[in-house]
């Protein structure tokens, strides 16, 4: 079954990197349904496409990842969220997991780490 992925990050470089990595042969059942640069855009896209997975940055303009996770957890409880954030954000990450995210990936991350984290979430 193909799973729909929404990529949320305010950095275009990170967004594109994640998108490119999703072409990895190890992730055959992943289809990218959208790329969002801030929390508001992310919530809008998520409501439109109802993704199965979301990669979520925490520090973003307009609406931060924390708030975005809260909203997604309420409106789309089936959606699984992978927090992709900097190492120093451990406290924030803990809060994000408490709010309903299911995974956490430190920035900077390697290709293998991202693929592993997504596979883990797809299980």
């Amino acid at each position, binding site marked *: 079954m193909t799973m729909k992925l929404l990529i949320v990050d305010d950095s*275009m470089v990170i967004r*594109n990197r994640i*998108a*490119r990595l*999703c*072409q990895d*042969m190890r992730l*055959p059942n*992943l*289809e*990218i*349904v*959208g*790329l969002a640069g801030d929390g508001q855009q992310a919530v809008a896209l998520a409501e439109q496409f109802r993704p199965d997975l979301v990669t979520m940055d925490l520090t973003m303009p307009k609406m931060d990842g924390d708030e975005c996770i809260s909203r997604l957890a309420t409106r789309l409880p089936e959606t699984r969220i992978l927090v992709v954030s900097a190492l120093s954000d*451990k*406290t924030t*990450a*803990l*809060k994000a*997991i*408490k709010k309903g995210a*299911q*995974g*956490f990936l430190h920035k900077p991350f390697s290709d293998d780490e991202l693929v592993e984290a997504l596979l*883990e979430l797809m299980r």
Partner: protein
Amino acid sequence: MNPQPHTWLGKYRELLAAIALFLVLDLGVLIFNTYTSHLIERDTAHINTAGELRVYSQQLTKALLTLRMEMQSGDSYQTSQAQLSESYSAFSTALQHLQGLTLGSSGPGASMDPQSRELLDQLVETWEPINTGVLPVLNAATPSAWDVDDAVNRAVTRNVRLMQLADDLTRHLEAQAVSRAASLRYIQLGAIFLASLNFFFIVFKFIRRLLESDRQIEAARQETREILDTVREGLFLLDRDGHLGIQQSRSLPELFGRPVAPGLKFDELIAQLLEPEQQEAARDYIDLLFNRKVKPALLEELNPLREVTLAAGQDGRRKGPTHLSFEFTQVLEQGEVRALLVTVFDISRQMQLARDLAGAEARASSEVESLLAVLDQDPAQVRDFLKSGEDRLGMVNQALQDVQPEARAYAELINFAFRAIHSIKGEAGALGLLEVSRQAHQFEDLLTPLRRRQDLTGDDLIPIAFQVGELRQKLAQIGEVLAKVRRYQEAPVSQHPFVELKKQIEHLALKVAEDLNKKVRVEVNFPQQAPNLDERLLRHLHEMLPQLVRNAVAHGIESEAERLQAGKLPEGTVRVEFATTTEGSLSVSVRDDGRGISCARIRARLLELGHPHELVESMSERELIATLFTPGFSLQEEANEHAGRGVGLDLIRDMASRAGARIRLSTLPNAYTQFTLQFQPAS
């Protein structure tokens, strides 16, 4: 040691068996008692009846004799006749009772022992003639004298014998009753003995089991105590309410630098050790640990207490460790997290080592910077400095070898060395070679106290020789860097960057074609005059061209069979064309002679993906083509390594906008697709 449900009964099996035995024994004795009492009761009745026989026999004989006497004297004899009838009837009834005639086969006669039976038979045999003689007397209203005489004779001759037999029977029955009573006593005694044995067995077993389990519990407690006393790590259990457990390792107070009472709140414990922000993170984390839904691997990664720098005490210092690491393990019971096993490690030493290592790395990198700083200097000056420095150090070294073993010569040598090193330090500082001047400064620090001393010995020179070596090494390193730079500069310039790019494109196209089982020819054409590409532009080309070429081969070029069917050559062509405009801007096009892009197909795909029918139908060709550039859209249903994820064109659009380039797409179904990247002229 753990009690397991299925062996629980086993542990008490013997005890239960003993109790069951006790009950069975009691029941047996009760039944036997009842039965024997019943027999004794019956025997007593028999004894009475047998005794009565004797009395009735006597009464009968006496009544007969009285009757004869009254008849002879002509007196009224109704009274004696009535007495006769009464005693006869009593005797007969008693005898019948003993014989069991009135009670059938289950009467006493049937259950009598052989000897009693025999005595009873004799009694009946002796009675029978009397019975025959008495009956005519009893039956006649006025008995004849002859009948009475005959009856008297029969009774008198047999009465003694009859009484004797009744006595014998009585005695025998008495003896039998006594023997039954005795056996009843023995059985009761035996039963009491067995019950006592059983009781003692139960008590013994039970006490032994209690002692055994006490011993095991004590041994387990002892082991736990020894483990907890010995481990260097802090160990304790944390319950759902955040209280510390009773069992703790002995090292715990040492690690925390404070007494840790059982039942203490974890919050209170960390309140004195951690900064407020860390405390909050710790609380959040512990909440998550009690949540079974969060995956263990993620929990491990999120642990905010893996490396904890302890807050300093009130006096700014604290005893014991400076850094702790906490590890949390879930204690599960029936799938629920019942408690957390907390392990606390003292990682002060590791942290110190890590800091030292980081310091060393920082120094190493500053050394590299120092070596690179030399490149900013005038080469001739640097060369002169290295040469003179090497000469000076060589002279010091020579002096160290030639020095006379006397204090004055040592002092002169040290002064000589000091001047040489001081010069090196000055020159190195002027050239910005900070690492050399630092090393020279360190050398001076060694020499300064020696210059003041009068009592120098040969041993004082050993560190000098070492320092000379160190400084020489620093100079040699700089020399090496310069030599490498020279070699690098003199190396022949590699081929034009376009050649690399061309190779890369060709290689990629053939690889993708091979993977997808297609035939492809690649043509890469550069303009006659290669444009002057800056590094940034070249990087963009390296990013975008492979994507476009991959798309061309994967999406554009058809399979061999499809091509033949469409009347094309089996081999597809992908052409990459570079062109420069008169303004100096660069345009690059990637064109394939494949199936082209059909708007009908885009429409169909959009409908397939669930977009509203009216919307799709109302879209212009331009809008349809534009959807190809939206994230996640792909015409291909099945994704493979090279296509179908709907990411390629979207990425190219992003890259192009970053590179400040415009994308043009022209296509003709069944003929070609061409992407053109138009770069802005270089400023």
